[in-house]
C-alpha cells in the first residue's frame, strides 16, 4: 500500500481583512499544483477563508495561528485556526458550533441559517455553517481561557489494500 504524502504549512499572521484573500489564494495556488482534486482544494481554501475572516472580525490581539494539513490525494485535510477573543464571542462560537455538530443535515441547517440572517447585522455563524455544508468538513472547538482553536477537518477515506 502506497501512502499519500501529506502537505502542511503553518502561518502566524495579523488577522486583517485584506490578508484573508491573499492567504486563500496562496493555499489554492500551492495545493492545486500538487493535489489532483481541484474541488478538494476549493473545500480547504473555503474553510481557510471563512475561518480567517472570523479571526479578522472577532480576534483580540495581533496574532492568529493558521495551520493546514492536506493529503495530496485529497482524501484527508485539516485546517486549524487559533486566536484570542472575547468571552462574548466565545459563547456565541460555542453555541454555533454545538448547533452545527448536532445537525444531521448540514445543508438544511446552512439554508436555515441563511434565512435567519435576513434583517440582522450581528454575528450569524453563517461562515461556519458554510464550511460544514459546502466544504463538507467537520468542525470542533477547543477553548483555553480567552484562546480559541477551531479545527475544520475531514476523515481519510478508507484505502483499498494494494
Amino acid at each position, binding site marked *: 500500500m502506497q501512502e499519500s504524502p501529506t502537505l502542511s504549512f503553518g502561518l502566524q499572521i495579523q488577522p486583517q*481583512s485584506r490578508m*484573508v484573500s491573499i492567504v*486563500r489564494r496562496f493555499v489554492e495556488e500551492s495545493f492545486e499544483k500538487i493535489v489532483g482534486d481541484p474541488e478538494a482544494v476549493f473545500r480547504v481554501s473555503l474553510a481557510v*477563508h471563512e475561518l480567517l475572516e472570523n479571526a479578522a472580525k472577532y480576534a483580540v490581539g495581533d496574532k492568529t495561528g493558521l495551520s493546514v494539513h492536506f493529503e495530496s490525494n485529497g482524501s484527508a485535510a485539516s485546517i486549524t485556526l487559533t486566536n484570542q477573543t472575547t468571552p462574548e464571542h466565545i459563547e456565541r462560537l460555542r453555541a454555533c458550533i454545538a448547533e452545527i455538530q448536532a445537525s444531521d443535515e448540514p445543508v438544511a441547517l446552512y439554508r436555515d441559517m*441563511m434565512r435567519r*440572517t*435576513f434583517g440582522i447585522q450581528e454575528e450569524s455563524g*453563517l*461562515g461556519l455553517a458554510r464550511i460544514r*455544508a459546502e466544504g463538507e468538513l467537520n468542525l470542533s472547538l477547543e477553548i483555553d481561557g480567552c484562546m480559541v482553536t477551531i479545527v475544520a477537518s475531514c476523515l481519510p477515506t478508507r484505502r483499498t489494500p494494494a
Partner: protein
Amino acid sequence: MSNDWVESMRENDFTAQATTTNRRIQVSLTGTADLTVKTQLDHFLHEVHTEAQRCLAEEVTVDVRQLEFMNSSCLKSFVWWISTVQEQTGDGKYRIVFVSSPSMYWQRRSLNALACLANEIISVQA
C-alpha cells in the same frame, strides 16, 4: 432599445456593474467579493433593487462567471436582496437569474443554496 441607467463600483479587484435595457437589468460581478467590499456590495444591491422597482423590471441577470470567490458576508448581502424581492407583491416582484461558471467551484454550491431560498424567483444557469 433604451439603456438609461448605469451603476458601477470598484474596490480592490472587485467590480460590479449594472445596466438597464427595456425592463431587464444586467448585472456583472468580477474579482473577489470578500469582507473588504461588503459595505459597497450592500449599497450596490440596494441601488439595483431600487432601479428594478423604478423600471418595473421583469428580470435581473447576474453574471458571476468571472467572480472568483464570494465570502459568507457577501452571500448575506444576496440573502437580503432575494428576501426583499420575495416580499414584494405584484409588479414589484422580479426574477433573478444567476449566470455561473462550472470552473468556479464555489458557485455551484453557494448559488444552489441561494436559489433554495426562493425557487419561484431564482434560477441558476451554468
